[in-house]
């Protein structure tokens, strides 16, 4: 793919993770975070008149497109102090988030307590990629797409596979995935990988340490493809490349890898659940004592793709 020119427009898909229970525990209130995100979005729209924007919001229950708004959305209020282009986006985002939260709180009680902070990003990511694909096919001009995930919740191990598929799809499409972990204590392992693989930026905003979300957004996530070639951006220092096993959705340091389809398992299984390959248990067992129970190190996804080093044997 050729390099971005200064005059090329960008297409930014913002994915807002508005999982209420995740935000409830964070030092930064959801309202403040939204306000700051909207300033960031206004700044993005101000950069270039041809810049395009899509905003998605994701709760535990559903994922909705907030902007471009559907035509039957409530009429915008007459606030003449705001630049018209900004207002349409701002109103759509705020009212959309409000509607989503109220519908989410109605069904929130059914959610399992332990999963309440899990955020389901894979759905939003695939929706974002669909938007990008659609806009790409409808224009001839060079538009450089990227996704910004404003994440709050904890990784849901259950969606590892679908998320990874989304990440690889983004990589193939040349879509950068930027991740701003705005709330929550730990890093998101999955999203770190998403940023790393697609060439985006992963940053965790630590509100307790006095980081400003807005400053981080404007400083690190506003730069388009062209600017990223000119300026340095805060990099991904350490990325946790651990994978999740396909059988129990646990994050594993060491596991088994199918030699045919590279699926990862935390326990030895006679048949690969993904590609139905039968393994020769005998030979695997024979090796086992020598390897002291360790069969294979789950390597980074990218390494896995290039080198197929496995010890599970094929019948």
């Amino acid at each position: 793919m050729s390099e971005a020119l200064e005059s090329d427009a960008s297409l930014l898909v913002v994915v807002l993770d508005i999982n209420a229970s995740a935000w409830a525990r964070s030092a930064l209130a959801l309202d403040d975070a939204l306000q700051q995100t909207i300033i960031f979005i206004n700044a993005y729209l101000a950069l270039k008149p041809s810049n395009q924007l899509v905003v998605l919001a994701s709760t535990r229950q559903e994922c909705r497109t907030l902007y471009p708004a559907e035509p039957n959305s409530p009429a915008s209020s007459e606030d003449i102090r705001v630049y018209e282009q900004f207002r349409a986006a701002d109103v759509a985002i705020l009212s959309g988030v409000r509607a989503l939260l109220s519908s989410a709180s109605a069904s929130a009680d059914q959610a399992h307590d332990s999963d309440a902070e899990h955020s389901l990003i894979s759905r939003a990511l695939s929706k974002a990629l669909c938007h990008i694909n659609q806009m790409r096919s409808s224009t001839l001009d060079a538009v450089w797409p990227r996704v910004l995930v404003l994440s709050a919740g904890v990784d849901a191990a259950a969606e590892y596979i679908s998320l990874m598929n989304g990440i690889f799809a983004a990589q193939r499409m040349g879509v950068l995935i930027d991740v701003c972990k705005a709330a929550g204590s730990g890093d998101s392992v999955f999203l770190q990988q998403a940023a790393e693989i697609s060439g985006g930026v992963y940053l965790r905003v630590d509100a307790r340490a006095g980081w400003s979300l807005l400053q981080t957004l404007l400083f690190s996530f506003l730069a388009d493809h062209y600017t990223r070639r000119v300026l340095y951006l805060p990099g991904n220092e350490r990325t946790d490349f651990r994978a999740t096993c396909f059988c129990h959705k646990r994050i594993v340091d060491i596991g088994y890898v199918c030699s045919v389809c590279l699926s990862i398992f935390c326990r030895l299984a006679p048949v690969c659940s993904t590609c139905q390959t039968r393994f020769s248990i005998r030979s695997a067992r024979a090796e086992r004592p020598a390897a002291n129970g360790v069969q294979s190190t789950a390597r980074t996804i990218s390494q896995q793709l290039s080198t197929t080093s496995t010890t599970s044997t094929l019948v």
Partner: protein
Amino acid sequence: MSASEEDFKSTIAEYLESLPEQFSRRVFSNPAACLAIFRLLSTVGKQLIMSMLYLESPIKLQEVQQWARPEHQRTVKSKVHQLRKLHILVEDRGQVLLNAIFREQLRNALTGGGDFSSFGTPCSDGNVRVPVTLAGLAKYADERWEKILHFMVGQSGGETGGVALSESVRRILLESKLMEAEGSKGMRITNSGFQFLLQDVGAQVWTVLLQYLRLAEKQEMDVVEVLNFLFQLVSLQLGRGYSTEALTRNQRKMLGELADFGLMYLDERGGGRFYPTHMVTSLTSAAGAGESAERDGRRPGDSGPLAGDESSSAGRGRANGSRALAASAKQRSSELLSPSDKGYIVVETNCRVYAYTDSPLQIAILNLFVHLVSRFSNFVTGVLTRSSVRRALSHGITADQMIAFLSTHAHPQMQGSTPVLPVTVTDQIRLWEKEKNSLHQTESFLYREFNGRPAFERVYRYAQELNVIQWASMERQLLLVSLQGHAMISEHTKKVKEQQEKQQRQQQQRVQQ
């Protein structure tokens, strides 16, 4: 965005740079102006500003320069320098900070705080009997603008029914040297006028606005007021009526003059209101660029004019759900595509040009550098010939301008291929330009019919000493010398002749003796 538009943006930036600091402070006091200025900056400059927008304390200049990747150090340095010239960035003992006023007002622009009416005062459309439609606005603007362009190409006699350009328009055309006065009342297009014609509308409007500023300066109007008002105008929303009540007298006068260019539509009924047209709103915002295409009726399935009371974003997409999304995505992309959307020119490898247009203006502009062969009801054909291109070149139009014009207006069918224009044609146009530039005219004198070989050689040697020979042929005894060389040589030959005559006379005397 074409290169020419970039040029003009940089010139308006240059204009801002030339303002003294107290002036720019006053310009910055308006959020709309800050936003418009921000949009005129380079991408890197914008990123630098945004990085510092919410910083409260100054940071080291060195630190800013360390943001740049090594191979782009110089770019960033020059951008920082430009920001400082614009008084946006303030340097103090190696530390930099955004100008406090600019920072506050740009924040206001992004957050919607601050001055109440900086983005114009829209009026309610309750008491308007005849609502202004977007299509009507576009038609009005295009008619006005084309009338001026017509006037410039001298095609005004046709269906526009004689030219009645207002005094201010004439003055700006003269002032900007796009046209020059001829005789008592007539006007003639200049070389820069020809170049102007080939630019896209955005660049043309910027040129006019810049000239307007210069003129305002000459008339001793308050430049800051004019600037602020201009920046406010470019941030208005298309299709919305704005009240003229809060405006000062100067601003009303400006509105009237801008209306002559088709940048504004004035509605005097009911207290007075004005509507910005797509020509001014598309200067810094993408919304509205597609409206002219809509008027052309090239977008199928778009039903008629939209009512004026709808803002264009609300008026977009009447379908439901995902279809509306797709439609709005399409619409946005077609806004981006606006130049190609209107594309009508097909260029073949054999230099033939087919233009699907019936607009006399477009035909007249094509006629500047295409030899038009035949004209049909909906399209014209022509050939790019050496003489037609040379004629354009002699008007000061450059090869790049012709190529840019052809490629920005290329027919959608041609847009798919890269490069858009056949390489043979672009190369040929460039070659013709080179050919023309390779010929220099120098006034000179040709010496011929020398009186024998020794005479020629004597003059030749003398000219060689003076280094004034343009060209010479030993065999045919021809000598071409430059103008000042001629004076010296003729003096020299006179002297030689006199000497010869003296000698001859002496010889004759001797013979007689």
